[in-house]
Protein backbone atom coordinates (compact mmCIF):
# COMPACT_ATOMS: atom_id res chain seq x y z
CA UNK A 1 0.00 0.00 0.00
CA UNK A 2 2.94 2.26 0.70
CA UNK A 3 3.87 2.47 -2.94
CA UNK A 4 0.49 4.02 -3.75
CA UNK A 5 0.97 6.86 -1.34
CA UNK A 6 1.48 10.18 -3.05
CA UNK A 7 4.47 12.21 -1.98
CA UNK A 8 4.18 15.91 -1.25
CA UNK A 9 5.61 16.78 -4.66
CA UNK A 10 3.14 14.49 -6.43
CA UNK A 11 0.22 15.83 -4.43
CA UNK A 12 1.22 19.36 -5.32
CA UNK A 13 1.40 18.39 -8.99
CA UNK A 14 -2.06 16.86 -8.78
CA UNK A 15 -3.60 19.92 -7.15
CA UNK A 16 -1.87 22.22 -9.61
CA UNK A 17 -3.08 20.12 -12.54
CA UNK A 18 -6.70 20.34 -11.41
CA UNK A 19 -6.42 24.07 -10.76
CA UNK A 20 -4.72 24.82 -14.08
CA UNK A 21 -7.14 22.68 -16.08
CA UNK A 22 -10.19 24.17 -14.41
CA UNK A 23 -9.00 27.65 -15.28
CA UNK A 24 -8.08 26.60 -18.79
CA UNK A 25 -11.63 25.40 -19.39
CA UNK A 26 -13.22 28.42 -17.74
CA UNK A 27 -11.22 30.79 -19.93
CA UNK A 28 -11.71 28.93 -23.19
CA UNK A 29 -15.44 28.30 -22.74
CA UNK A 30 -16.82 31.70 -23.77
CA UNK A 31 -14.24 32.08 -26.53
CA UNK A 32 -14.98 28.55 -27.67
CA UNK A 33 -18.73 29.06 -27.85
CA UNK A 34 -18.29 32.35 -29.69
CA UNK A 35 -15.86 30.83 -32.19
CA UNK A 36 -18.10 27.82 -32.71
CA UNK A 37 -20.98 30.19 -33.40
CA UNK A 38 -19.01 32.19 -35.91
CA UNK A 39 -17.86 29.05 -37.70
CA UNK A 40 -21.27 27.39 -37.65
CA UNK A 41 -23.42 30.32 -38.66
CA UNK A 42 -21.10 32.90 -40.13
CA UNK A 43 -20.75 33.48 -43.78
CA UNK A 44 -17.74 35.61 -44.54
CA UNK A 45 -14.54 35.60 -46.50
CA UNK A 46 -11.77 34.05 -44.47
CA UNK A 47 -13.99 31.58 -42.64
CA UNK A 48 -11.85 28.67 -43.78
CA UNK A 49 -8.78 30.51 -42.64
CA UNK A 50 -10.28 30.96 -39.18
CA UNK A 51 -11.22 27.30 -39.14
CA UNK A 52 -7.64 26.35 -39.96
CA UNK A 53 -6.27 28.68 -37.32
CA UNK A 54 -8.50 27.17 -34.67
CA UNK A 55 -7.31 23.68 -35.57
CA UNK A 56 -3.59 24.51 -35.55
CA UNK A 57 -3.01 23.25 -31.99
CA UNK A 58 -4.41 19.91 -33.10
CA UNK A 59 -1.96 19.46 -35.94
CA UNK A 60 1.15 21.36 -34.91
CA UNK A 61 3.66 19.82 -32.51
CA UNK A 62 2.86 21.07 -29.00
CA UNK A 63 6.42 22.35 -28.63
CA UNK A 64 5.82 24.66 -31.59
CA UNK A 65 2.69 26.01 -29.94
CA UNK A 66 4.70 26.50 -26.75
CA UNK A 67 7.31 28.43 -28.65
CA UNK A 68 4.68 30.58 -30.36
CA UNK A 69 3.19 31.32 -26.96
CA UNK A 70 6.63 32.33 -25.75
CA UNK A 71 7.07 34.70 -28.66
CA UNK A 72 3.61 36.21 -28.20
CA UNK A 73 2.97 36.11 -24.51
CA UNK A 74 6.36 35.97 -22.83
CA UNK A 75 7.51 38.94 -20.80
CA UNK A 76 9.14 40.32 -23.93
CA UNK A 77 6.56 38.91 -26.22
CA UNK A 78 4.56 40.90 -28.72
CA UNK A 79 1.42 40.85 -26.59
CA UNK A 80 2.98 39.90 -23.27
CA UNK A 81 5.04 43.05 -23.09
CA UNK A 82 1.92 45.19 -23.51
CA UNK A 83 0.03 43.13 -20.96
CA UNK A 84 2.77 43.69 -18.47
CA UNK A 85 3.21 47.35 -19.16
CA UNK A 86 -0.44 48.37 -19.08
CA UNK A 87 -2.09 45.79 -16.89
CA UNK A 88 0.77 44.39 -14.86
CA UNK A 89 -0.20 40.91 -15.94
CA UNK A 90 2.51 38.31 -16.31
CA UNK A 91 1.84 34.82 -17.56
CA UNK A 92 5.43 33.67 -17.98
CA UNK A 93 6.72 31.10 -15.50
CA UNK A 94 3.55 30.84 -13.49
CA UNK A 95 0.32 28.85 -13.38
CA UNK A 96 -1.46 31.37 -15.55
CA UNK A 97 0.93 30.60 -18.38
CA UNK A 98 0.37 26.90 -17.80
CA UNK A 99 -3.38 27.49 -17.94
CA UNK A 100 -2.99 29.48 -21.13
CA UNK A 101 -0.93 26.74 -22.77
CA UNK A 102 -3.51 24.16 -21.75
CA UNK A 103 -6.38 26.36 -22.95
CA UNK A 104 -4.80 26.86 -26.36
CA UNK A 105 -4.15 23.16 -26.84
CA UNK A 106 -7.66 22.21 -25.76
CA UNK A 107 -9.42 24.96 -27.70
CA UNK A 108 -9.99 23.07 -30.97
CA UNK A 109 -11.63 20.19 -29.12
CA UNK A 110 -14.03 22.52 -27.41
CA UNK A 111 -14.87 24.38 -30.61
CA UNK A 112 -15.53 21.17 -32.50
CA UNK A 113 -17.92 19.84 -29.88
CA UNK A 114 -19.88 23.08 -29.59
CA UNK A 115 -19.96 23.60 -33.33
CA UNK A 116 -21.39 20.14 -33.82
CA UNK A 117 -24.11 20.91 -31.31
CA UNK A 118 -24.85 24.26 -32.96
CA UNK A 119 -25.17 22.73 -36.37
CA UNK A 120 -27.75 20.30 -35.11
CA UNK A 121 -29.95 23.00 -33.61
CA UNK A 122 -33.09 23.45 -35.65
CA UNK A 123 -32.78 26.98 -36.95
CA UNK A 124 -36.51 26.91 -37.50
CA UNK A 125 -36.88 27.19 -33.74
CA UNK A 126 -34.76 30.30 -33.79
CA UNK A 127 -36.91 31.73 -36.57
CA UNK A 128 -40.02 30.94 -34.58
CA UNK A 129 -38.62 32.79 -31.59
CA UNK A 130 -37.93 35.81 -33.78
CA UNK A 131 -41.54 35.92 -34.92
CA UNK A 132 -42.54 35.91 -31.27
CA UNK A 133 -40.71 39.16 -30.73
CA UNK A 134 -37.31 37.96 -29.52
CA UNK A 135 -34.27 39.78 -30.85
CA UNK A 136 -31.13 37.86 -31.86
CA UNK A 137 -29.57 38.05 -28.36
CA UNK A 138 -32.68 36.82 -26.61
CA UNK A 139 -32.99 34.04 -29.16
CA UNK A 140 -29.40 33.01 -28.47
CA UNK A 141 -29.72 32.96 -24.70
CA UNK A 142 -33.20 31.49 -24.39
CA UNK A 143 -33.34 29.11 -27.33
CA UNK A 144 -29.96 28.31 -28.86
CA UNK A 145 -27.83 28.16 -25.74
CA UNK A 146 -30.09 25.83 -23.74
CA UNK A 147 -30.27 23.52 -26.73
CA UNK A 148 -26.50 23.25 -27.11
CA UNK A 149 -25.77 22.70 -23.41
CA UNK A 150 -24.98 19.00 -23.92
CA UNK A 151 -22.48 19.97 -26.60
CA UNK A 152 -20.95 22.59 -24.37
CA UNK A 153 -20.60 20.12 -21.54
CA UNK A 154 -18.96 17.60 -23.83
CA UNK A 155 -16.61 20.28 -25.11
CA UNK A 156 -15.75 21.43 -21.61
CA UNK A 157 -14.97 17.96 -20.34
CA UNK A 158 -12.92 17.09 -23.41
CA UNK A 159 -11.01 20.32 -22.93
CA UNK A 160 -10.51 19.52 -19.26
CA UNK A 161 -9.14 16.08 -20.01
CA UNK A 162 -6.86 17.45 -22.72
CA UNK A 163 -5.61 20.15 -20.34
CA UNK A 164 -4.79 17.59 -17.70
CA UNK A 165 -2.52 15.85 -20.16
CA UNK A 166 -0.87 18.93 -21.63
CA UNK A 167 2.93 18.71 -21.67
CA UNK A 168 4.88 19.95 -24.69
CA UNK A 169 3.52 23.47 -24.91
CA UNK A 170 3.62 23.90 -21.13
CA UNK A 171 7.22 22.87 -20.61
CA UNK A 172 8.39 24.97 -23.54
CA UNK A 173 6.47 28.08 -22.54
CA UNK A 174 6.64 28.16 -18.75
CA UNK A 175 9.27 25.53 -17.91
CA UNK A 176 9.03 23.10 -15.01
CA UNK A 177 8.55 24.99 -11.75
CA UNK A 178 7.21 22.95 -8.86
CA UNK A 179 4.09 24.53 -7.41
CA UNK A 180 3.60 26.88 -10.32
CA UNK A 181 3.85 25.03 -13.60
CA UNK A 182 4.76 21.46 -12.67
CA UNK A 183 1.52 19.79 -13.53
CA UNK A 184 1.02 16.04 -13.41
CA UNK A 185 2.50 15.36 -16.85
CA UNK A 186 5.56 17.50 -16.11
CA UNK A 187 6.08 15.81 -12.77
CA UNK A 188 5.80 12.47 -14.49
CA UNK A 189 8.34 13.58 -17.08
CA UNK A 190 10.81 14.71 -14.42
CA UNK A 191 10.47 11.38 -12.69
CA UNK A 192 11.34 9.57 -15.90
CA UNK A 193 14.52 11.60 -16.25
CA UNK A 194 15.76 10.92 -12.75
CA UNK A 195 17.58 7.68 -11.89
CA UNK A 196 15.15 5.13 -10.44
CA UNK A 197 12.12 7.33 -10.66
CA UNK A 198 10.11 4.59 -12.38
CA UNK A 199 7.95 3.56 -9.46
CA UNK A 200 6.78 7.09 -8.81
CA UNK A 201 6.28 7.68 -12.51
CA UNK A 202 4.05 4.64 -12.73
CA UNK A 203 2.05 5.86 -9.78
CA UNK A 204 1.40 9.18 -11.48
CA UNK A 205 0.59 7.39 -14.69
CA UNK A 206 -2.15 5.37 -13.04
CA UNK A 207 -3.45 8.48 -11.32
CA UNK A 208 -3.65 10.37 -14.62
CA UNK A 209 -5.53 7.55 -16.28
CA UNK A 210 -8.02 7.34 -13.41
CA UNK A 211 -8.74 11.05 -13.50
CA UNK A 212 -9.17 11.07 -17.26
CA UNK A 213 -11.55 8.10 -17.14
CA UNK A 214 -13.56 9.70 -14.36
CA UNK A 215 -13.87 12.91 -16.38
CA UNK A 216 -15.02 11.07 -19.49
CA UNK A 217 -17.61 8.98 -17.67
CA UNK A 218 -18.89 12.02 -15.83
CA UNK A 219 -19.28 13.93 -19.06
CA UNK A 220 -21.23 11.08 -20.62
CA UNK A 221 -23.65 10.99 -17.69
CA UNK A 222 -24.24 14.72 -17.53
CA UNK A 223 -24.59 15.03 -21.27
CA UNK A 224 -27.11 12.23 -21.42
CA UNK A 225 -29.11 13.67 -18.53
CA UNK A 226 -29.32 17.04 -20.24
CA UNK A 227 -30.34 15.61 -23.57
CA UNK A 228 -33.14 13.66 -21.96
CA UNK A 229 -34.33 16.72 -20.14
CA UNK A 230 -34.29 18.77 -23.33
CA UNK A 231 -36.41 16.26 -25.13
CA UNK A 232 -38.81 16.43 -22.25
CA UNK A 233 -38.42 12.77 -21.50
CA UNK A 234 -37.86 13.47 -17.84
Amino acid at each position, binding site marked *: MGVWHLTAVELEALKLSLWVSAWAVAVSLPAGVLTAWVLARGRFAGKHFLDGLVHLPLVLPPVVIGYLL*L*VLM*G*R*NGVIGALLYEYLGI*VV*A*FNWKGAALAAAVMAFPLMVRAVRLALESVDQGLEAAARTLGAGPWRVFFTITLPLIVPGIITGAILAFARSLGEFGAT*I*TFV*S*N*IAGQTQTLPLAL*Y*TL*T*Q*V*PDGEAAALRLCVLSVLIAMAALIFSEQVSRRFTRRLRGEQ
Partner: protein
Amino acid sequence: MAFMKRIRHLWVLVLLFSFGPNLGTCVAASAVNDLVVFAAASTTNALGEIGTLYEARGMGHVTFSFASSSTLAKQIESGAPADVFLSADVPWMTYLEDKKKVAPENRQELLGNRIVLVVPADSPVKAVEIEPGFSLSNVLGKEGRLSMGDPEHVPAGKYGRKALEQMGVWDQVKDRLAPMKDVRAALVMVERGEAPLGLVYATDAAISQKVRVVGIFPSDSHSPIVYPVAAVSGGKMEAAKPFLTFLKGSEARAIFLKYGFDVR
Protein backbone atom coordinates in the same frame (compact mmCIF):
# COMPACT_ATOMS: atom_id res chain seq x y z
CA MET B 1 -10.13 3.89 -67.14
CA ALA B 2 -7.63 6.51 -68.24
CA PHE B 3 -8.38 8.23 -64.97
CA MET B 4 -7.29 5.17 -62.98
CA LYS B 5 -4.06 5.06 -64.93
CA ARG B 6 -3.39 8.67 -64.11
CA ILE B 7 -4.00 8.04 -60.42
CA ARG B 8 -1.56 5.18 -60.48
CA HIS B 9 1.06 7.36 -62.16
CA LEU B 10 0.47 9.97 -59.51
CA TRP B 11 1.07 7.46 -56.75
CA VAL B 12 4.31 6.32 -58.34
CA LEU B 13 5.43 9.92 -58.51
CA VAL B 14 4.51 10.52 -54.89
CA LEU B 15 6.40 7.46 -53.76
CA LEU B 16 9.42 8.38 -55.84
CA PHE B 17 9.50 11.87 -54.43
CA SER B 18 9.20 10.72 -50.86
CA PHE B 19 11.77 7.99 -51.08
CA GLY B 20 13.85 8.98 -54.04
CA PRO B 21 16.02 11.53 -52.33
CA ASN B 22 16.54 9.03 -49.57
CA LEU B 23 17.43 6.20 -51.84
CA GLY B 24 21.02 7.36 -51.88
CA THR B 25 21.20 7.69 -48.14
CA CYS B 26 19.13 4.57 -47.65
CA VAL B 27 21.91 2.62 -49.20
CA ALA B 28 24.45 4.54 -47.16
CA ALA B 29 22.54 4.21 -43.86
CA SER B 30 22.75 0.50 -44.01
CA ALA B 31 26.44 0.87 -44.61
CA VAL B 32 28.38 -0.83 -41.87
CA ASN B 33 30.28 2.29 -40.86
CA ASP B 34 27.31 4.55 -40.22
CA LEU B 35 26.67 5.51 -36.65
CA VAL B 36 23.99 6.87 -34.39
CA VAL B 37 25.43 9.16 -31.74
CA PHE B 38 23.51 10.36 -28.70
CA ALA B 39 25.23 13.47 -27.36
CA ALA B 40 24.71 16.15 -24.75
CA ALA B 41 22.87 19.22 -26.01
CA SER B 42 25.81 21.50 -25.27
CA THR B 43 27.89 19.72 -27.91
CA THR B 44 25.39 20.29 -30.70
CA ASN B 45 27.40 22.73 -32.78
CA ALA B 46 30.83 21.21 -32.28
CA LEU B 47 29.79 17.63 -32.88
CA GLY B 48 27.71 18.60 -35.85
CA GLU B 49 30.79 19.99 -37.50
CA ILE B 50 32.85 16.97 -36.53
CA GLY B 51 30.25 14.65 -37.97
CA THR B 52 30.28 16.46 -41.28
CA LEU B 53 34.07 16.18 -41.36
CA TYR B 54 33.90 12.47 -40.51
CA GLU B 55 31.62 11.89 -43.44
CA ALA B 56 33.68 14.08 -45.76
CA ARG B 57 36.64 11.88 -44.94
CA GLY B 58 34.56 8.94 -46.16
CA MET B 59 34.60 7.30 -42.78
CA GLY B 60 30.86 6.94 -42.48
CA HIS B 61 27.63 8.86 -42.00
CA VAL B 62 26.83 9.99 -38.47
CA THR B 63 23.32 10.64 -37.25
CA PHE B 64 23.05 12.67 -34.07
CA SER B 65 20.42 12.98 -31.37
CA PHE B 66 21.08 15.92 -29.07
CA ALA B 67 19.27 16.31 -25.78
CA SER B 68 19.95 16.50 -22.10
CA SER B 69 22.24 13.67 -21.06
CA SER B 70 19.58 12.55 -18.62
CA THR B 71 17.02 12.07 -21.37
CA LEU B 72 19.51 10.27 -23.59
CA ALA B 73 20.71 7.98 -20.83
CA LYS B 74 17.15 6.97 -20.06
CA GLN B 75 16.51 6.29 -23.70
CA ILE B 76 19.60 4.15 -24.03
CA GLU B 77 18.59 2.29 -20.92
CA SER B 78 15.30 1.49 -22.63
CA GLY B 79 17.09 0.15 -25.66
CA ALA B 80 17.37 3.13 -27.97
CA PRO B 81 19.48 2.25 -31.02
CA ALA B 82 22.51 4.42 -30.22
CA ASP B 83 26.04 3.39 -31.02
CA VAL B 84 27.91 6.09 -29.10
CA PHE B 85 26.96 8.12 -26.01
CA LEU B 86 28.61 11.41 -25.14
CA SER B 87 27.48 12.55 -21.71
CA ALA B 88 27.84 15.98 -20.10
CA ASP B 89 28.62 14.44 -16.78
CA VAL B 90 30.15 11.33 -15.28
CA PRO B 91 27.21 10.19 -13.10
CA TRP B 92 24.96 9.58 -16.10
CA MET B 93 27.69 7.59 -17.86
CA THR B 94 28.27 5.59 -14.68
CA TYR B 95 24.53 5.05 -14.44
CA LEU B 96 24.56 3.36 -17.82
CA GLU B 97 27.71 1.44 -17.06
CA ASP B 98 26.08 0.03 -13.95
CA LYS B 99 23.19 -1.11 -16.07
CA LYS B 100 25.64 -2.68 -18.50
CA LYS B 101 24.49 -0.45 -21.29
CA VAL B 102 27.88 0.97 -22.21
CA ALA B 103 31.14 -0.81 -22.73
CA PRO B 104 33.58 0.34 -20.04
CA GLU B 105 36.64 -0.58 -22.05
CA ASN B 106 36.01 2.09 -24.69
CA ARG B 107 35.03 4.78 -22.28
CA GLN B 108 37.20 7.85 -22.26
CA GLU B 109 37.08 11.34 -20.89
CA LEU B 110 36.78 13.72 -23.73
CA LEU B 111 35.95 17.30 -22.82
CA GLY B 112 35.72 19.80 -20.06
CA ASN B 113 33.69 22.96 -19.73
CA ARG B 114 32.99 25.89 -17.44
CA ILE B 115 29.71 27.20 -16.19
CA VAL B 116 28.94 30.86 -16.48
CA LEU B 117 26.28 33.41 -15.74
CA VAL B 118 24.77 35.10 -18.78
CA VAL B 119 22.40 37.98 -19.34
CA PRO B 120 20.50 39.13 -22.42
CA ALA B 121 22.72 41.18 -24.71
CA ASP B 122 20.84 44.39 -23.91
CA SER B 123 20.82 43.91 -20.15
CA PRO B 124 22.13 46.77 -18.00
CA VAL B 125 24.07 44.28 -15.88
CA LYS B 126 27.74 44.49 -16.69
CA ALA B 127 29.55 42.05 -14.47
CA VAL B 128 28.74 39.88 -11.49
CA GLU B 129 31.45 39.13 -8.97
CA ILE B 130 31.11 35.47 -8.17
CA GLU B 131 32.34 35.06 -4.64
CA PRO B 132 30.95 33.37 -1.56
CA GLY B 133 27.64 34.87 -0.52
CA PHE B 134 27.32 37.14 -3.52
CA SER B 135 23.96 38.76 -3.97
CA LEU B 136 22.42 36.81 -6.80
CA SER B 137 18.84 37.73 -5.96
CA ASN B 138 19.68 41.38 -6.46
CA VAL B 139 20.65 40.68 -10.01
CA LEU B 140 17.40 38.82 -10.55
CA GLY B 141 15.40 41.77 -9.38
CA LYS B 142 11.91 41.49 -7.96
CA GLU B 143 10.37 39.03 -10.33
CA GLY B 144 13.13 37.61 -12.48
CA ARG B 145 13.96 33.94 -12.58
CA LEU B 146 17.27 32.20 -13.07
CA SER B 147 17.09 30.10 -16.20
CA MET B 148 19.06 26.90 -16.02
CA GLY B 149 18.87 23.20 -16.84
CA ASP B 150 16.64 21.33 -14.41
CA PRO B 151 18.88 20.72 -11.36
CA GLU B 152 17.04 17.47 -10.79
CA HIS B 153 18.57 15.78 -13.77
CA VAL B 154 20.22 18.00 -16.39
CA PRO B 155 24.02 17.94 -15.93
CA ALA B 156 24.39 21.69 -16.45
CA GLY B 157 21.70 22.16 -13.82
CA LYS B 158 23.37 19.77 -11.41
CA TYR B 159 26.75 21.50 -11.76
CA GLY B 160 25.01 24.83 -11.43
CA ARG B 161 23.29 23.80 -8.24
CA LYS B 162 26.52 22.53 -6.74
CA ALA B 163 28.30 25.74 -7.63
CA LEU B 164 25.52 27.86 -6.15
CA GLU B 165 25.53 25.77 -3.01
CA GLN B 166 29.30 26.11 -2.76
CA MET B 167 28.94 29.88 -3.02
CA GLY B 168 26.27 29.80 -0.33
CA VAL B 169 23.61 31.39 -2.51
CA TRP B 170 21.50 28.36 -3.43
CA ASP B 171 18.89 29.19 -0.79
CA GLN B 172 18.54 32.68 -2.22
CA VAL B 173 17.50 31.41 -5.60
CA LYS B 174 16.17 27.89 -5.25
CA ASP B 175 12.55 29.11 -5.39
CA ARG B 176 13.30 31.50 -8.19
CA LEU B 177 14.42 29.11 -10.88
CA ALA B 178 13.14 28.41 -14.34
CA PRO B 179 14.16 24.78 -14.69
CA MET B 180 14.48 23.89 -18.38
CA LYS B 181 14.69 20.47 -19.92
CA ASP B 182 18.18 20.99 -21.31
CA VAL B 183 20.87 23.65 -21.25
CA ARG B 184 20.06 24.96 -24.72
CA ALA B 185 16.47 25.65 -23.70
CA ALA B 186 17.85 27.55 -20.72
CA LEU B 187 19.97 29.60 -23.10
CA VAL B 188 16.96 30.42 -25.28
CA MET B 189 15.09 31.83 -22.30
CA VAL B 190 17.88 34.32 -21.70
CA GLU B 191 18.25 35.09 -25.41
CA ARG B 192 14.58 36.00 -25.52
CA GLY B 193 14.89 38.18 -22.47
CA GLU B 194 12.32 36.09 -20.64
CA ALA B 195 14.82 35.46 -17.88
CA PRO B 196 17.18 38.21 -16.75
CA LEU B 197 19.87 35.73 -15.83
CA GLY B 198 20.90 32.29 -16.95
CA LEU B 199 23.31 29.62 -15.87
CA VAL B 200 24.78 27.78 -18.84
CA TYR B 201 28.03 26.38 -20.11
CA ALA B 202 30.72 28.77 -21.31
CA THR B 203 30.49 27.03 -24.68
CA ASP B 204 26.80 27.80 -25.00
CA ALA B 205 27.35 31.46 -24.18
CA ALA B 206 30.07 31.60 -26.80
CA ILE B 207 27.88 30.60 -29.71
CA SER B 208 25.06 32.98 -28.96
CA GLN B 209 25.13 36.60 -30.07
CA LYS B 210 22.13 37.41 -27.96
CA VAL B 211 23.67 36.81 -24.54
CA ARG B 212 26.65 38.15 -22.70
CA VAL B 213 28.76 36.44 -20.06
CA VAL B 214 28.82 38.39 -16.81
CA GLY B 215 30.52 35.92 -14.52
CA ILE B 216 32.43 32.66 -14.62
CA PHE B 217 32.17 30.16 -11.76
CA PRO B 218 35.53 29.07 -10.38
CA SER B 219 36.19 25.50 -11.48
CA ASP B 220 36.50 24.33 -7.91
CA SER B 221 33.01 25.49 -7.02
CA HIS B 222 31.61 22.32 -8.51
CA SER B 223 32.85 18.85 -9.30
CA PRO B 224 34.99 18.88 -12.45
CA ILE B 225 32.90 19.09 -15.55
CA VAL B 226 33.89 16.05 -17.50
CA TYR B 227 32.28 14.81 -20.69
CA PRO B 228 32.87 11.09 -20.98
CA VAL B 229 32.18 9.27 -24.22
CA ALA B 230 31.69 5.54 -24.73
CA ALA B 231 30.36 2.97 -27.16
CA VAL B 232 26.92 1.62 -26.37
CA SER B 233 26.70 -2.13 -25.72
CA GLY B 234 24.61 -3.84 -28.32
CA GLY B 235 25.29 -1.08 -30.82
CA LYS B 236 27.81 -1.09 -33.65
CA MET B 237 30.79 -1.38 -31.40
CA GLU B 238 33.27 -2.09 -34.18
CA ALA B 239 32.21 0.93 -36.19
CA ALA B 240 32.22 3.07 -33.05
CA LYS B 241 35.92 2.59 -32.43
CA PRO B 242 37.19 4.68 -35.35
CA PHE B 243 34.73 7.42 -34.40
CA LEU B 244 35.92 7.47 -30.82
CA THR B 245 39.49 7.67 -32.08
CA PHE B 246 38.53 10.47 -34.45
CA LEU B 247 37.06 12.41 -31.55
CA LYS B 248 40.45 12.35 -29.87
CA GLY B 249 42.25 13.27 -33.08
CA SER B 250 43.72 16.68 -33.83
CA GLU B 251 41.03 17.79 -36.25
CA ALA B 252 38.24 17.12 -33.77
CA ARG B 253 40.20 18.71 -30.96
CA ALA B 254 40.64 21.85 -32.98
CA ILE B 255 36.90 22.03 -33.52
CA PHE B 256 36.13 21.49 -29.86
CA LEU B 257 38.62 24.16 -28.86
CA LYS B 258 37.13 26.53 -31.37
CA TYR B 259 33.81 26.21 -29.62
CA GLY B 260 35.34 26.82 -26.23
CA PHE B 261 35.54 23.34 -24.75
CA ASP B 262 38.43 22.19 -22.66
CA VAL B 263 40.01 19.22 -24.32
CA ARG B 264 41.42 16.51 -22.13
